[in-house]
């Protein structure tokens, strides 16, 4: 009876995930190995094409740069927020959450207005006389990165505020009273304790930007094709489903690989878990 209960309650959800997520994704990946030209031929085709390699490397590069900038900005902001008194802290958290809850399309769209040829940034730069004609900032790797950082900094802040708040104040006071300089306290107490949180944040941002679709589509366009937009283009524009499935498989491997490596690293680095 109890056995029936514990499994029975979870069964609908298990079935849903298995039938509509696991099976379709496995079929998609499996389909790439059934080519008449050889088991790995779609992958050979992918990696022997300079263009496709460029798309993959560009996506990894954009995701890495986005993660690094978001970590830096997010950590400093989260650190300051965590030190704020109650009321100011709540206001700042609300201000950080609000963009997060506003859709990706809306938030990427804002950067179209800012970075466009007749956009705000060009208008400002022209009027102060720094430039004499408008810069083309859209459809560059930089514009994609700026919009991605914009997308992910709130997520990073939220992840890190919780972690930084959890660091016992006694530890910091102990370090200070034993004569540690603020820099030493930061390096030897705060940073190690925050590392698991930094890793979680980094994984969220890296996988999020590596697999994003709307932002590269809007701000990168055809010129700055990334894996997500490439997958869509292969599947829905050229109807090359094997090609699209190959891209899908590579994305799954990179994503799950990063998550696996980083969560192992987080476990090893977590000083609380010893």
């Amino acid at each position, binding site marked *: 009876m109890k056995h029936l209960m514990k499994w029975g309650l979870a069964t609908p*959800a298990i079935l849903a995930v298995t039938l509509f997520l696991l099976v379709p994704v496995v079929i998609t990946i499996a389909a790439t190995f059934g080519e008449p030209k050889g088991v790995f031929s779609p992958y050979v085709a992918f990696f022997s094409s300079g263009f496709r390699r460029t798309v993959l490397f560009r996506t990894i590069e954009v995701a890495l740069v986005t993660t690094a900038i978001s970590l830096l900005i997010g950590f400093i902001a989260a650190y*300051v927020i965590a030190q704020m008194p109650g009321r100011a802290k709540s206001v700042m958290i609300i201000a950080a959450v609000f963009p997060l809850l506003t859709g990706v399309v809306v938030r990427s769209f804002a950067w179209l207005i800012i970075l466009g040829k007749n956009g705000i940034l060009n208008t400002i730069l022209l009027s102060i006389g720094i430039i004499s004609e408008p810069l083309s900032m859209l459809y560059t790797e930089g514009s994609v990165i700026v919009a991605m950082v914009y997308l992910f900094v709130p997520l990073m802040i939220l992840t890190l505020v919780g972690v930084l708040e959890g660091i016992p104040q006694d530890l910091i006071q102990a370090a200070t009273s034993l004569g540690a300089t603020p820099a030493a306290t930061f390096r030897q107490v705060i940073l190690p304790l925050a590392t698991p949180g930094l890793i979680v944040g980094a994984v969220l941002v890296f996988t999020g930007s590596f697999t994003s679709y709307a932002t590269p589509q809007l701000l990168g366009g055809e010129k700055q094709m990334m894996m997500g937009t490439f997958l869509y283009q292969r599947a829905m524009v050229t109807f090359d489903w094997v090609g699209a499935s190959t891209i899908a498989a590579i994305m799954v491997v990179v994503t799950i690989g990063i998550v696996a490596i980083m969560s192992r690293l987080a476990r090893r680095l977590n000083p609380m878990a010893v």
Partner: protein
Amino acid sequence: MARTVHPALIAFTALVFLFLLAPLVIIIGAAFSDTTYLTFPPQGLTLHWFSNIFQVQAFRTTAITSLELAFLGTALSLLIGIPAAYAISRYRVELPRWLSTLFVLPILVPEIVFGFSLMKSITIGLGLPIFPSLLIGHALLVLPYSVRVVSASLASFDFSIEEAAISLGCPPLKTFLTVVLPNIRAGVIAAFILAFITSINDVSVSVFLTGPGISTLPIQILAHMEQFFDPTIASVSVLLMLVTVAVMAIVEVTLGLTFLTK
């Protein structure tokens, strides 16, 4: 107790918040501009673009589809997610650990891969109509919120209260509805809100599952942007922001927003 923070760090954080909020202010400004192209600061003020949203039928129909999907998809995910979360928390020791991992999969698998695979298997493979396909996609996309947020609030629930009710003769289902559910209400509301917002803003999964006649609002916004670059998009964005504000107000009143960092 607050510690002193270096002024340079505070100044930097102020800049971060300027970076986070200025683009949204810019959208709001552009939505009221009296021009046929997007610009900021607005040239003259008009509500024309807001009324234009309601003139464009595609926005009306896709907004309704998006709302239906978000409500039904979230409801479905809670319907299967709450019992699963209950099983995971109640029988934590007896159930294998991979079970919780299984329910994180919809987050772990890239959305765009999920959308593509789902389209191939159910829209094309099974020949399912567009709306049910979208509904399945959205329900699964938000399932992790239902399972994880509800499990989190069940973790602090004292199951001996439930046993007391059952031993006093209350039937299991009634016990769940009258004893357990009221105690995890905050978690259920939080799960609902996170799931709802995720669903209503989704692009990556929907982009494969929308088809002739049925689309969602974010997909329609993308399509509109490719044809027209007028302030209508800015005013739609403002309306979407208002929805977010309303939802956040509900969260603040029911739970307090700080639950988001816990």
